[in-house]
């Protein structure tokens, strides 16, 4: 029986169908898919709010919205993109592929895995529903919610935002514990920590970050909730400390940005060797660089607070640690380049996005080191330079990486279908050019002193803002092209049952070709598949 026929047969196995299948599933692959779909829906919502922000900034002064609504849109945009798009999308990849890659039959706690996912829809609804409720405004205190601003407004929408974040915190904590136990305890035959795919290492480092940083911000959010509702004075009032909120928030907030980027680096670690036809350069240094980023990531949080007047000695330590993160990150970038170097490069969509990632993420990273320097931060704090910097890491980095993953694993995620390379090409170039048009001018505006989080700006910035807005709409078109690609592939008859990329077959592709990756069924591996290193050796011998 062919793998394909076997797949079709197993699909018909006595499983619940329709809605019930999705509401009750505990299968890591199906949960992974739901994460990705839910994430994408919120990507659209967050994207629409970004477009409204950019339209408002087309001209100085209140035009499309007013200042009040502008505050809501950019706060919603930030919260949504971080917590409801990038995180769920990456958790989706992790859920789907980590167990397969390490040959585990499922995640360690299948029901808790489903719970982690199901907390996302109510959290998203709580965040967004104030937009349609009369007399309630949505979160309008930015995604960080600094006190005393966040304790000033008597608005139930803000409490709903906090509850939404608390729910997502519970979801991610449980999810990370699940990943760690899966990686440490569920590895299948022949899989060790030091030969498992680097994507699993990325998920390991990410989960460590989340398990130890989320509880701290959970406490901060609960205190904020108490300040707002139960008459406590944690962050405002006599004997309170508003800076304490910032410490507690950024103790989570900074690890969080590595949470958004490490799994994406994991995707690159899979894609780049595959499309360069070479094994990854420096496997161990890659794995430990990610662990290093995670560990140093815990020690840099106060660089978000250089301008709050904290002790200069503390500032100096945090500046040093911040620069230190550049080292493991640099190791990763150089290892990727060394992997590509001398390789036989295939420019399919996943590879284009990965190379795009390296280019953009390096710009984002280096501007991050610039901002980590205290005097530069003094000049650029709360300016558009900061906005440009983190969008280069979060969009240029994380979102490009997510698209690389979506294209790379397309036949897994979309039921053996394949995307159209030409449309994917259009999508990439529209997004790459649009992205740079949107955010590069923001570096220039920031250097000239344009303040972030304000709906208005001096006339002199009009042209740069308009370029930025045009770029934003190009990104929107790129995303629409991607959706069109998915729709077309859904209705086409073409099906793929073999690894479409050729070259060394990484673990998940090998198992997939054998027909073992079946939705709703646990993975059963009763043999030791060919180690990756041997595959690259065999391939090299064959091509020589």
């Amino acid at each position, binding site marked *: 029986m062919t793998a394909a026929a076997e797949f079709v047969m197993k699909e018909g196995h006595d499983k619940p169908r329709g809605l019930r299948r999705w509401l009750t599933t505990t299968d890591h692959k199906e949960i992974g898919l739901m994460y990705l779909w839910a994430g994408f829906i919120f990507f659209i919502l967050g994207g629409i709010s970004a477009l409204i922000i950019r339209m408002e900034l087309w001209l100085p002064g209140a035009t499309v919205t007013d200042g009040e609504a502008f505050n809501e849109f950019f706060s919603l945009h930030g919260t949504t993109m971080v917590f409801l798009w990038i995180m769920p999308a990456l958790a989706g990849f992790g859920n789907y592929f980590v167990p397969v890659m390490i040959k585990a039959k499922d995640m*360690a706690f299948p*029901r808790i895995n489903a719970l982690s996912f199901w907390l996302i829809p109510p959290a998203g609804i709580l965040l967004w529903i104030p937009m349609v409720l009369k007399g309630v405004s949505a979160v309008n205190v930015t995604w960080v919610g600094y006190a005393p601003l966040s304790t000033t407004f008597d608005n139930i929408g803000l409490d709903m935002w906090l509850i939404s974040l608390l729910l997502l915190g519970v979801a991610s904590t449980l999810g990370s514990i699940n990943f760690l136990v899966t990686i440490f305890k*569920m590895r299948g*035959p022949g899989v060790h920590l030091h030969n498992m795919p680097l994507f699993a290492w990325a998920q390991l480092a990410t989960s460590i970050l989340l398990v130890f940083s989320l509880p*701290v911000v959970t406490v901060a959010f609960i205190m904020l909730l108490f300040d707002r509702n139960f008459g406590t*004075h944690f962050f405002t009032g006599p004997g309170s*400390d508003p800076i304490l909120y910032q410490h*507690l928030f950024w103790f989570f907030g900074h690890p969080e940005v590595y949470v958004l980027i490490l799994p994406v680096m994991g995707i690159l670690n899979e894609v780049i060797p595959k499309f360069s036809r070479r094994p990854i350069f420096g496997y161990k240094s890659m794995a430990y660089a990610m662990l290093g980023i995670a560990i140093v990531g815990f020690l840099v949080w106060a660089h978000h607070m250089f301008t709050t007047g904290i002790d200069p000695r503390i500032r100096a330590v945090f500046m040093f640690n911040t620069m230190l993160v550049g080292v493991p990150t640099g190791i990763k970038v150089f290892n990727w380049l060394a992997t590509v170097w001398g390789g036989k490069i295939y420019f399919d969509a996943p590879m284009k996005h990965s190379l795009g990632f390296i280019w953009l993420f390096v710009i984002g990273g280096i501007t991050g080191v610039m901002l980590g320097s205290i005097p530069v931060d003094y000049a650029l704090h709360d300016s558009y330079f900061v906005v440009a910097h983190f969008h280069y890491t979060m969009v240029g980095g994380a979102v490009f990486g997510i698209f690389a993953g979506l294209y790379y694993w397309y036949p897994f995620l979309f039921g053996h279908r394949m995307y159209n390379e030409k449309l994917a090409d259009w999508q990439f170039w529209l997004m790459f050019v649009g992205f740079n048009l949107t955010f590069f001018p923001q570096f220039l505006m920031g250097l000239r002193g344009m303040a972030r989080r304000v709906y208005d700006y001096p006339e002199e910035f009009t042209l740069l803002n308009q370029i930025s807005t045009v770029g934003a709409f190009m990104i929107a078109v790129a995303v629409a092209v991607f959706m069109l690609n998915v729709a077309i592939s859904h209705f086409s008859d073409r099906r793929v049952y073999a690894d479409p990329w050729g070259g060394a077959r990484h673990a998940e592709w090998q198992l997939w070709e054998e027909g073992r990756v079946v939705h709703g069924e646990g993975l059963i591996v009763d043999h030791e598949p060919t180690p990756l290193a041997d595959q690259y050796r065999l391939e090299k011998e064959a091509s020589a």
Partner: protein
Amino acid sequence: MSNEHAAGHAHPEPHLPHGSWWPFFLAIAMSLVFLGVVMGPVVLIPGALILAVVLVGWWMEDFRWWKTNTGTGPGMARAGTLLFISSEVFIFGALFSTYFTFQRLADHWPDADVHFPIATVAFFTLVLFSSSYTIHQAEKRLKQGDRSGFNKWWGLTILLGTIFLGGQIYEYVVLISEGHVLGSSQFMTTFYMLTGTHGLHVAGGLVYLIVVWIRSLKGQFDEHRHAGPETAAMYWHFVDLVWVFVFSVLYLIPAYVLH
């Protein structure tokens, strides 16, 4: 696959669960309870009721799955509990940081008019610590195959935990009647946050101890399969350990060092 043969027939390879409604409903129940905290009893009470029903459903599923050997295998629960506990350390870490920050900022610490009945609290502390001993005895009995001994010691642990929690509630009632409420002062705020968080952990732990007890009385757990009681005990020891710090920082140091 081969290692389970080596381990003997104590742990036959469990089979994977297929589908459950409870995660979906638990997410809804949790959202309602969280929302109820700010929206008031109209949301909180139905939310709590749904939560109770869902948890009973979840644990009854555990009960059935134990019999059919459904799950991902032993060892997962142990590792998961250890990680959960290490995450919890950071919750208490953040709360203690807040306490010490406020102490540093305050002119007088603690409030001059707050006097805790140290002897009474010390008695309840002793009760809680002895529950760590009894739960250890229970676990030991179970691993020796003495299930009735396990049930007795486990029941005693639940009793001791309940007495401690009762003492805590009594202390709250006295403090509130004296006018020391959550928002009275920075000291009282952090006092209630720390003891309250700890108390919630004791309460949650007790619920889980009771679930384990009921399952055991109905014939589950033995010397080979004891992940449930084992993880419950790990968690219970942790909650006890946290009390060492809470008791020292909130009661002993203010009473004997700062005054």
